[in-house]
């Protein structure tokens, strides 16, 4: 107990004090860190839909939805930023519940393909509904409170705190009866419903929470870059959220944050390769998946896994 709270304290100190102290003068580093934190936060939602047994490739759509809600509220109605974030989260979650209800009946590759199309469909809606979204020219010069010389630091701290709170919330869900119900759905929906679990309600709950994370993340990114376009989130982003979870590890709530940091940072570090950046990135991804099928976090769990296996054998 003591040693674990010490570890947590050290980790918080590192993330909230040391990292900003070291990198605050480099706007490039701060940009990478802010992006990684927000993308990690959005991946947390995707991780939750993994826990009910659905591979979700629609998080980009809800990032876009959250982004547009914030852009419109802030630039046309002068709504304060914290209310924009809230509205983006709640709006995306509600829309997610509405869309989730029918599509969550599907599973496996059918669900995944449908969510992927949802990302593309959302982009097309944003492109066509010019009256609301400004079409291809997007919405620019979105007012945010993050101005002036400390704006990177403030945004980083805000995003980092959000990521920490989000991870805590998902950790809490996972370790209570809610998480057990989610995992039961992942393995056998018919069995769960036989003892009275309202399967469709819990599926929608998990998916809607996921979309809420997407909406909040989209809102944050929009405020960071102060603009939004139909291409601000694409199918590639939706796929990346899924990959962050895979590479970080589906077995731990820290997987999404770690995956987002390593992969986003990794992609930036490959920038000198120019035209070969994406190719190298893909090759490294494939290798990583082959070597670490259970994600990066499986590296530090060998003891516990062995204990589990022994318990199962005896």
């Amino acid at each position: 107990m003591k040693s674990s709270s010490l570890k947590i304290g050290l980790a918080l100190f590192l993330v909230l004090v040391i990292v900003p102290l070291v990198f605050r003068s480099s706007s490039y580093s701060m940009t990478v860190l802010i992006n990684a934190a927000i993308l990690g936060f959005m991946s947390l939602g995707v991780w939750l839909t993994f826990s009910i047994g659905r591979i979700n490739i629609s998080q980009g759509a809800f990032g876009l939805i959250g982004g547009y809600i914030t852009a419109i509220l802030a630039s046309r109605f002068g709504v304060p930023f914290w209310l924009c974030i809230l509205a983006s989260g709640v709006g995306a979650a509600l829309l997610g519940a509405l869309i989730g209800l029918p599509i969550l009946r599907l599973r496996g590759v059918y669900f995944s393909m449908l969510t992927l199309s949802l990302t593309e469909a959302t982009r097309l809606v944003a492109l066509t509904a010019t009256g609301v979204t400004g079409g291809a020219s997007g919405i620019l010069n979105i007012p945010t409170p993050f101005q002036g010389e400390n704006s990177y630091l403030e945004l980083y701290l805000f995003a980092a705190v959000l990521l920490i709170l989000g991870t805590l919330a998902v950790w809490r869900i996972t370790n209570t009866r809610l998480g057990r119900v989610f995992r039961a759905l992942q393995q056998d929906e018919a069995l769960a419903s036989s003892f009275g679990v309202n399967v469709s309600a819990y599926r929608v709950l998990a998916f809607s929470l996921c979309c809420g994370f997407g909406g909040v993340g989209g809102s944050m990114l929009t405020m960071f870059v102060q603009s939004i376009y139909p291409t601000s989130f694409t199918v590639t982003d939706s796929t990346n959220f899924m990959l962050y979870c895979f590479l970080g590890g589906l077995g731990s709530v820290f997987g999404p944050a770690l995956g987002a940091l390593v992969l986003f940072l990794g992609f930036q570090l490959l920038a000198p390769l120019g035209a070969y950046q994406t190719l190298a990135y893909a090759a490294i991804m494939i290798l990583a998946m082959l070597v670490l099928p259970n994600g990066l976090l499986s590296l530090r769990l060998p003891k516990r896994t062995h204990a589990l296996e022994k318990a199962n054998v005896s």
Partner: protein
Amino acid sequence: MTTLEPQMQNLERTGMPVLEVKNLTKRFGGLVAVNDISFNVLNHEILAVIGPNGAGKSTLFKLIAGAETPTTGTVLLEGQPLTGKPQHVVARLGVVRTFQETTIFKEMTALEHVMIAHHLQSKAGNWGIFAGSPRAKSDEIDFRSSASQILGFLGLGALQSEAARSLPHGHLRALGIAMALAAKPKVLLLDEPFAGMNPDETDRAVQMVRGIRDLGITVVLVEHDMRAVMRLSDRIVAVSFGKKIAEGSPLEIQNDERVIEAYLGKEDDELGV
């Protein structure tokens, strides 16, 4: 919790039907899996549904439990219609089924299986569970002790903390029944509870089903093991090709010509004759 206290005063088998199955029909495209089947289940009886493979027994159970919607017909529980209600609502109203195939959650222990199956007994809402409300905490304590009591009752007491996937087949069948009991059913539907068991295991399981009835729970079971069915059931409904062909006491069923005919080509002793 008082899950397992026998309700002796109610044990009298009353003439009142607790479950009424009325003209149930289920079509899958051109195939009529269940064809106009009607029967009543009396309070606190053990009723067996028998019939050759593919006769429509599992489909019949799915229709009663709300896992499938009947093409036509109705099911009443204590006079209230169940038809059209989804499975989790039917379970809440008091009809719970087990599965013909063995189904478990990997990575959960036996105790965790039965604890999660107490879902319907939850007093805390989702938000309370997330926030760790006092109700959520007392739920957790109640579920744990009730689950451990149910496992003990079914003879799995020593295996509580075993990972379910490492349990032998016979115990897994019992674990399925333990989960169903956790939902506190009035009527328990057991789909082939003795399938794949050796004679010893079957003997114990027969005792177990009697014990469940003695708790005041009405039991309807589908079973192939005729010896067990004849010993255990108060009444039997026989189905063949989706139709009910006979209904009566074990003795009546044993001597029913249509039943014998439906089983023709099978060993005589399958009917326990």
